[in-house]
């Protein structure tokens, strides 16, 4: 069994803000049933651009549920500009840390948030426009490059922990390695 922090366990056992918001200002979805986890994030945003309410529906393991609960707690009362700045690290930190192999749960939170905010603005996210690298988990090169940059990922294992990419059949591991190298060379 994983060594979860007390806060992860507490948020898992007593998750905050479970449910849907009818007529939500924005909804962001990430994950799928085949991937093993999925989060649907609902935001209620008022005319001043402040997140008045946040709720979630999550399918997934303990850390996925705890990350969703944490994210909704963090979001309430924030302006959109403040919400944009929440990173997956912030979510993990709020929970007293996550096992490295479970970091993808915090990334899922951040990605659902990005999608909700983009939907609110009526924009599309650029990541999905990239080329799919990991077929098992449907992850594009743009998503991988972004995660490598933002989290300073060093290895394919790191990428799998944060994005799941490469964690299925493993056929894309070489491509992921190339992407990491490209990012590192540019830095």
């Amino acid at each position: 069994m994983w060594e979860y922090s007390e806060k992860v366990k507490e948020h898992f056992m007593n998750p905050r803000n479970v449910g849907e918001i009818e007529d939500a200002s924005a909804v962001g979805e990430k994950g799928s049933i085949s991937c093993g986890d999925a989060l649907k994030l609902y935001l209620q945003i008022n005319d001043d651009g402040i997140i008045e309410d946040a709720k979630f529906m999550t399918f997934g393991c303990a850390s996925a549920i705890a990350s969703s609960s944490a994210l909704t707690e963090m979001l309430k009362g924030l302006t959109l500009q403040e919400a944009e700045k929440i990173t997956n690290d912030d979510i993990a930190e709020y929970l007293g840390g996550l096992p490295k192999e479970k970091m993808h749960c915090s990334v899922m939170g951040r990605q659902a948030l990005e999608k909700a905010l983009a939907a609110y603005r009526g924009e599309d996210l650029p990541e999905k426009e990239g080329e799919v690298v990991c077929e098992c988990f449907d992850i594009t090169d743009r998503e991988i490059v972004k995660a490598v940059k933002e989290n300073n990922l060093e290895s394919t294992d790191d990428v799998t922990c944060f994005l799941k990419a490469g964690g299925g059949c493993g056929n894309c591991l070489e491509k992921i390695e190339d992407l990491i190298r490209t990012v590192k060379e540019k830095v």
Partner: protein
Amino acid sequence: MTTVYVDNNATTRVAPEVLDEMLPYFSEYYGNPSSVHAFGGNVAKKIREAREKTAALVGASPEEIIFTSCGTESDNAAVRSALKSAPEKKHIITSAVEHPAVLNLCTALEKEGYRVTYVPVDTSGNFDFDYFTQSLSDDTALVTVMWANNETGVVFPVKDIAEKAAEKGIPFHTDAVQAVGKIPVDVRELPVNMLSLSGHKIHAPKGVGALYVKKGTRFHPFVVGGHQESGRRGGTENVASIIGLGKASELAVDHLPRVDTDVRHMRDYLENTLLETVSFSSINGNRERRLPNTVSIGFDAIEGESILMHIDYAGICASSGSACTSGSLEPSHVLRAMEVPFKSAHGSIRFSLSVYNTMEEMKYIAETLPPIIRKLRMMSPFWDRCNDKA
């Protein structure tokens, strides 16, 4: 809080009688069985007795039993020995749902130049016998197929498989780690050349196993060293654990009828009650051809680790076929080979019972689980809440 342990396919408690047998052999009778003096010689005598008891458990002769460190070592020894005995042959047949001890060994052997056929299973986990017979070739060095599956409990037609292999003169090994002690396993009833078993699955301690090698089957040692185990497995014997395995084998013979009646009854009660009380739940595996102690049950739209953590707080120890518990990201290879749909594969839980479980414990599990399933479903985006009204 009391612990309700229903994870006996993972490991079992050391039976009190087993521990009692073992204890004097740590610091009282600590002699080396290979020594000339009587102090060591008495230990050798106990090992002989243990060998007789372990042999009796599977219907073998004592000299056909090699003690090893675990089931995995037995599997490795068997497979490597068979390959070494037929160096010109480069083909292995196994199943797609083997334990990693065999499966990962086979993938390693592929890198060493072997061709491996992974015989598929159907959606109920049944071995595809036709596929198997069509895979047999003059180049096949070994057929290695498990007796019973650890995750679903599905029992394979090992007798038919062994006979088919024997017809072609191909040696047959079976990983019987999950079958021994749960259903009758008798090597006299089928042409099996090698059979692996593990101590800690039958109430002996961890760190001891055995490999049956049929008289007349060529054997090349896996662990090379001293003359122990008649030169077939080097290394000073794990004396206390071997004595424990002997005692556990004796107990397993005694317990076997109760596994088929009492344990089966408890398993069926748990399984039927859960199926009745939890909608959108389903059994993974052929219910008719299954170990009497195992149930793998999938709950739609929720994830296994979440279920396990909730029941863990309630003192219930079980396993999951889901990805998240193991650190891998996909459901178990067994459920994937069976093409169990993702919606239930991720939410699959395995309960595996032993003679030490009670009906009260089954009732406790059957009462504890449904509210947990409901709680998790109520937060799942894939759960249609209309289902609850049914």
